[in-house]
């Protein structure tokens, strides 16, 4: 039996798949690079540096060591027996990314990009953040690698996620509230790009998800694919076969592509992405980009975009700030179009029910993002029945969401009355 805590299962050595991008970053009709010429040289430089780094055994050994000793990977694959009994369908396995350092899968990506930044000789990193998870992860990596760090965050989000602003500042990062546009994640990305155009000679942009211009969708996937590579091996070890289905939530889609990649060329494994359905897709208040968006160009890539008939980006809505984005990674657009993966919307209410259910049955409070994957996968587990196995990416923990949960469930009110 392989001991996964010492196995040299580098997250960067995974085999290519039939769904990779071409040399120019095109996943079929999606992806590419729609960027100001001023940034093209930097993107070309990054592409070369990333390709050279992943081919360099010394870089890979350092990446693996940091992931293991600092981030705490491989994360465990947990056989959720109580949850399985409660749902009454397929056997449910949970990939415990919530137990990673900083509480989510995001640390894998930022450690990879920050290590690459050091290798490229740059001294400063910038990042965008919605809920603050990627910002906290970036600030963490910047502290670890002694890099200056500036995080752009929509002004609306800095108020919604004040605690994460405090965490970033404690870690030594500068947080810049973005007031332009809708003052949320998409505007934070715009502002980070504006910074990058002016600072690109000494600054790296740590992009937070598997979206944006080439090479970000492929590079971020490479840094997060350890999730699926580990889970595939762990599932084989635990059950003797591959899962019948894998499931993840999809905002920009980094945790999902990190899981899916290992299974793309296993046609017997069904792949499900669960998008933020907000109040319900029919209400128009949602962020289900693949389900309800149209092909367009946003933040440097062609992908599905929530837009009006003039191509102006439409504001998205989700109870989960980490999924509240009107675009999606271009590889997901490709997987949807080719039919390799199925994307379904999950509403705010369904997610919050799943969050509470996992808390009560397993004693695990998931992030609201991850609760979207749970809610959707519960239906899949029932559809597939008890002989099947469903592997769900529990991409993050729910500590950051307690204020939302407190309001949603009116928690603490009875206690208050007693006092």
């Amino acid at each position: 039996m392989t001991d996964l805590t010492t196995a040299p299962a580098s997250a960067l050595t995974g085999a290519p798949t039939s769904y990779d991008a071409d040399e120019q970053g095109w996943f079929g009709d999606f992806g590419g690079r729609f960027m100001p010429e001023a940034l093209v040289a930097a993107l070309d430089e990054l592409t070369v540096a990333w390709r050279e780094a992943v081919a360099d055994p010394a870089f890979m050994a350092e990446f693996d060591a940091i992931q293991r000793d600092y981030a705490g990977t491989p994360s465990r694959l947990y056989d959720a027996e109580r949850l399985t009994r409660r749902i009454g369908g397929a056997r449910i396995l949970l990939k415990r990314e919530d137990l990673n350092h900083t509480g989510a899968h995001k640390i894998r990506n930022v450690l990879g990009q920050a290590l690459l930044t050091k290798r490229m000789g740059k001294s400063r990193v910038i990042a965008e953040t919605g809920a603050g998870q990627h910002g906290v992860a970036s600030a963490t990596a910047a502290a670890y690698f002694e890099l200056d760090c500036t995080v752009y965050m929509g002004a609306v989000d800095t108020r919604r996620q004040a605690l994460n602003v405090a965490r970033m500042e404690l870690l030594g990062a500068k947080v810049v509230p973005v007031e332009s546009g809708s003052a949320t994640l998409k505007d934070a990305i715009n502002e980070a790009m504006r910074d990058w155009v002016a600072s690109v000679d000494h600054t790296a942009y740590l992009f937070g998800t598997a979206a944006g211009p080439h090479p970000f969708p492929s590079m971020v996937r490479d840094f997060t694919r350890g999730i699926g590579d580990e889970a595939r091996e762990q599932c084989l070890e635990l059950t003797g076969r591959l899962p019948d289905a894998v499931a993840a939530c999809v905002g920009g889609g980094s945790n999902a592509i990190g899981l899916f990649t290992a299974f793309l060329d296993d046609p017997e494994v069904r792949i499900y992405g669960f998008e933020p359905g907000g109040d319900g897709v029919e209400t128009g208040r949602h962020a289900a980009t693949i389900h309800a968006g149209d092909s367009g160009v946003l933040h440097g890539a062609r992908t599905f975009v929530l837009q009006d008939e003039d191509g102006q980006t439409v504001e998205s809505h989700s109870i989960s700030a980490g999924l509240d984005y009107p675009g999606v990674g271009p590889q997901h657009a490709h997987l949807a179009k080719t039919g390799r993966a199925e994307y379904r919307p999950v509403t705010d209410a369904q997610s919050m029910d799943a969050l509470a259910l996992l808390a009560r049955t397993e004693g695990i409070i998931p992030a609201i993002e991850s609760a979207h994957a749970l809610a959707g996968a519960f239906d899949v587990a029932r559809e597939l029945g008890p002989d099947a196995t469903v592997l769900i990416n529990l991409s993050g923990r729910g500590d950051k969401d307690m204020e939302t949960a407190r309001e949603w469930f009116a928690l603490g009110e009875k206690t208050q009355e007693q006092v």
Partner: protein
Amino acid sequence: MSTSVAFEKARSDDRAALVGYLPAGFPDVDGSIAALEAMVAAGCDVIEVGLPYSDPVMDGPTIQAAAQQALEGGFRVRDVFRTVEAVAATGTPAVVMTYWNPVERYGVERFARDLAGAGGAGLITPDLTPDSDPHWPSAADAHDLDKVYLVAPSSTDERIAMTVAACRGFVYATAVMGVTGARTTTSELAEPLVARTKAATGLPVGVGLGVSTGDQAAEIAAYADAVIVGSAFVRTLLDHGDDRAGGLRALTVLTEDLADGVRRG
């Protein structure tokens, strides 16, 4: 009407051309038309009509604010054609400066057809490089439109060669590494970029980003074929708010100063 007509005229006068930018629909559609007509009357040789977009990553706060005001005022993509038509009627070439998604959404071929139908000269595409997408060059060629791509101080000589080979009309050289917005000093990066660009093409090379005064225009006119000014015009209108007449007068004064600058260069 290609922009080359205006560049040839400026060249025959032995001076650089003045290119002025304003977003369509700012402060409203009729207001932007009146402003652009004032800029033409006061000495702009080519007009850039901006197409307001929700996610303008190349723009600084001034143009962002104007675009947002236009969108909040109900600007529609079709309004850009009416604006172009009004400018073209003055005999001055009008190019549209636009981020890519509104064009793709409108339909690339349909956009080219409607732009040509309105008398427009072509497109400047700040987030589209010649290697991004093959649809625009073929649509532009079919409708005899200018394709103005950007070169930047960070562009390699290979990319400059590739870019200028794809341009028609003129080449837009971004003077600084940064977004749009007035700056107090001209960039040291502009002149070497223009020299590298001119070594690769016979097309006129215009310099934009950060120019706001006649003195800056004169400095740039000494080595470039055109001086491109945007944020300074927008700022002038923003500063006058609801005082439309005052805004137009100030716009005329600024244009005259810049037009004098390109003649001193």
